[in-house]
């Protein structure tokens, strides 16, 4: 336990310092409220506007979660198929890597047209597309990183391809998969919120942040960002917790 505290203490100190400097410099340099509100005001609004902000956050979170599961699921499925059929992989991989360089978020208005501008589905779709590629690329890399000597050992037991896949390739790929899922959890939240900037339900977080900023209610916009950050962290934390439960063997997740 003391080790935990020692590990977290530096980050906590930096965090408190940043907040204090932020709070202090607004008073010191007379920075105007609409340029940068005080952290204390943001937290206050986070509480007073809870009846609109929190449900809005939950609404957006569900969109992100849907996109996260669909995108990651399809990414794992695609990696499995490509990993199984090598020729297919050589045809697809260069395209996949090129597609990864496309700023997918730029498609947001088009997704609105496809799945409905107000509909949560268009936001989930953006989140899903954002999650898909990193998950696919990483999982595929994981499936292909299996130790050839372990595969040879399995062959000495007359193991079938399926058994090698189940007992060697999948366990090897799991740490790679979780690294991708952590990235995807962040991307899913970004996708959902940015998607809502281009239009969405009136009670969606992205829509609220956008409209608050338009009417110069920056404190509420910042409070909305705080809600988004906390939900993003929650999703990330859930992935990390799942990783620790599943990848128990890895030295870096051991508890001393």
């Amino acid at each position: 336990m003391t080790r935990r505290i020692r590990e977290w203490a530096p980050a906590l100190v930096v965090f408190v310092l940043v907040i204090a400097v932020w709070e202090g410099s607004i008073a010191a340099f007379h920075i105007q409220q609409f340029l940068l509100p005080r952290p204390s005001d943001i937290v206050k609004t986070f509480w007073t506007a809870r009846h609109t902000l929190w449900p809005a956050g939950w609404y957006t979170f569900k969109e992100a979660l849907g996109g996260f599961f669909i995108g990651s699921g399809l990414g794992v499925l695609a990696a499995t198929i490509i990993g199984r059929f090598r020729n297919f992989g050589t045809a697809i991989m260069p395209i996949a890597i090129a597609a990864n360089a496309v700023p997918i978020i730029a498609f947001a208005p088009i997704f609105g047209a496809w799945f409905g501008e107000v509909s949560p589905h268009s936001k989930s779709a953006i989140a899903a597309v954002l999650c898909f590629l990193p998950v696919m690329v990483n999982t595929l890399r994981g499936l292909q990183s299996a130790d050839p000597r372990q595969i040879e050992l399995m062959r000495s037991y007359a193991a079938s391809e399926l058994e090698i896949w189940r007992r060697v390739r999948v366990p090897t790929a799991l740490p790679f998969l979780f690294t991708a899922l952590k990235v995807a959890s962040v991307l899913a939240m970004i996708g959902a919120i940015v998607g809502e900037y281009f239009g969405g339900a009136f009670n969606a977080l992205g829509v609220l942040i956008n409209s608050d900023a338009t009417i110069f209610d920056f404190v509420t916009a910042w409070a909305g960002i705080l809600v988004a950050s906390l939900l993003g962290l929650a999703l990330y934390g859930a992935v990390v917790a799942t990783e620790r439960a599943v990848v128990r063997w890895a030295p870096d997740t051991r508890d001393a």
Partner: protein
Amino acid sequence: MSERPVVEIRGVTKTFARGNVTALENIELELHPGEFVSLIGPSGCGKSTLLRVVGDLTPPTSGTVTINGKPARQAREDGDYGIVFQDSVLFDWRTVAKNIALPLEMLGWDREKRKARTEEMLDLVELRNFADHHPWQLSGGMQQRVSIARALSFEPALLLMDEPFGALDEMTRERLNLELLSIWEKLGSTVVFVTHSISEAVFLSTRVVVMSPRPGRIAGMVPIDLPFPRTVETREDPRFFELVTQVRELLRKRGEHLLPEEAAELL
């Protein structure tokens, strides 16, 4: 020696298409039940390749390998041999006990039988207290003992070992040599042991097969008549030094490309 050989290698040649290298040329070798045979030679002499051909992990270009009277492929599918590599090749996501039980799972043993055998093997390699540890929590020597326990868990008649102690320090290596011999004496399996250490080969074996490189051939054989059980004192026996010298002489002639009939004379 009148029993059916455990391993029969007949005219095995192996060429690698890339670089047009002849790794093995016309290898003839028979292993009898209970023999401990070391393959020794400089790197590139094809000793590891020969082991992999015996294990049906790579096909010979020509020639045949027969194990327990069956083609090598059938023997592999029947689980007739256990194999130990230079690296322990343990699965990080499995505990020590589960690593040892892996071949038993592959053979479809039920849970109770697996557990009982795994415990026997843990006792054999003296790792009972580490059953639930993961491989990265073990020293190199302990990892290699797990690997040996895994190879022996299903009591194969034949044990193939590819420089199993090559990556270990001298002290650990000598201790594991003694442990391996006591296990071998207990189980009576036939062992093919690849090494590039002359003293290790002489200390462990009932017969040392000396190989020469480019192309990989058998340069000669040295029967080792040191008495069993072999102990720390065996290494100080004058006969031990004579045999070491004999093997070294054979290795020195490796550049002269002995003809098969000359090699036969050295028997």
